[in-house]
């Protein structure tokens, strides 16, 4: 059953060193900033982080990187105009990088959540990102074999949750959240506010409660600061 928290520290309690952490968001849209900040204070280290980017500026994921907690980044687009924290660590040989095409990144997490053992993907065939990977020709088209990416933890941002853990998102802030929620053993969602069970229209729920273990209610958390 889903637990609702108002204290970010409690929401991220128990994340172990060495965990694979899936972090939602595309740019700042859907980025679970309060959960990342709490994770920094919580102290888990030697993490593998899976996220589309590798941090912007000096806050959020960039701050987690700057604190030396991340052993490896799996992402599609680390290099950005304001990714100086990652860039510095990478050039200093202090962080490992696996670059994955954005759609393959999403699909590998979907596979983890959907119990698919591996899938043949047409993306990246003939490119450096397919090097060392198994390939196969099916019906005249070439594919690369891709394996699931499973998380120990997912930290995601959603718009509204209900007390059972159902989530809805808002506009393009939906991005990786619904997929990551399915792919992690422990999914923690921050939401702008929590409503009573039954207030969300069942037709419009994007992430069913079965995928959500903990919710951080930002409306209550902010009020308490």
């Amino acid at each position: 059953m889903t637990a609702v928290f108002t204290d970010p520290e409690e929401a991220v309690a128990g994340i172990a060193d060495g965990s694979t952490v899936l972090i939602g968001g595309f740019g700042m849209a859907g980025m679970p900033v309060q959960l990342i900040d709490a994770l920094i204070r919580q102290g888990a280290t030697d993490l593998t982080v899976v996220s589309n980017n590798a941090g912007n500026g000096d806050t959020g994921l960039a701050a987690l990187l700057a604190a030396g907690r991340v052993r490896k980044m799996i992402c599609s687009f680390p290099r950005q105009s304001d990714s100086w924290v990652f860039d510095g660590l990478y050039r200093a040989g202090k962080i490992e990088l696996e670059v994955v095409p954005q759609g393959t990144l999403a699909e590998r997490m979907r596979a983890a959540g959907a119990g698919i053992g591996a899938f043949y993907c047409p993306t990246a065939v003939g490119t450096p990102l397919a090097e060392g990977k198994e390939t196969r020709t099916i019906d005249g088209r070439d594919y690369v074999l891709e394996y699931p990416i499973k998380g120990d933890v997912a930290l995601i941002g959603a718009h509204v949750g209900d007390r059972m853990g159902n989530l809805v998102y808002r506009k393009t802030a939906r991005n990786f959240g619904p997929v990551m929620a399915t792919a992690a053993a422990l999914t923690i969602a921050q939401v702008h506010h929590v409503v009573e069970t039954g207030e969300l229209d069942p037709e419009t729920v994007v992430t069913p409660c079965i995928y959500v273990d903990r919710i951080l209610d930002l409306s209550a958390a902010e009020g308490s600061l």
Partner: protein
Amino acid sequence: MSSTVEHLDRGPLGRDELAALVARDIPPGSFVNLGIGQPTTVADHLPAGSGVVLHTENGMLGMGPAAHGDEIDPDLINAGKIPVTELPGASYFHHADSFAMMRGGHLDVCVLGAFQVSERGDLANWHTGAPDAIPAVGGAMDLATGAKQVFVMMTLFTKDGTPKLVPECTYPLTGLACVSRVYTDLAVFHIGPGGVTVAETYGTSVAGLASRLEVAVRPLGQQP
């Protein structure tokens, strides 16, 4: 059969003219993804009522123009992370669904920038291959692989005069044999099983282009 149009009475295309040219060639009602950077400007040249529906890979169909002032909503951005707007008939979906849409061949056209395009339509646009460059691919490979047609927009030559339409890409590849059209400042090229044909030239001729390229190019309608 149509033949190559050589615009010899003018100079090369400006960036806006190039974007307008690409927009002209997008069929009405198409579902289109415009890549980050210069391709994004194609949207400004789509005629009103074209019915073209824009996809942004971060989870939206029916994307409108860039947002300004009070329209700016941090939850509504395009793949370049620029605030955008929503048009009537829009829909939102998550990343796996968005790239399933792309990978599954449902987009009619995507427009991308490029470092190099080979005569077979191989695309290189994600990585300079420089030893100190941090690799970052984003959705480039997914777009190159998934769309029914890939249009490239680029200058035909680098600043030092090296051709970017080449026999073989020397930069790391984004996708194999995926580009069908190349829109450049000097000419529009069609790439097909028979090789590279020149549809239009601007400020030069087919012969002029041929003299500066290592790729064999021929006018429209001429057999290889």
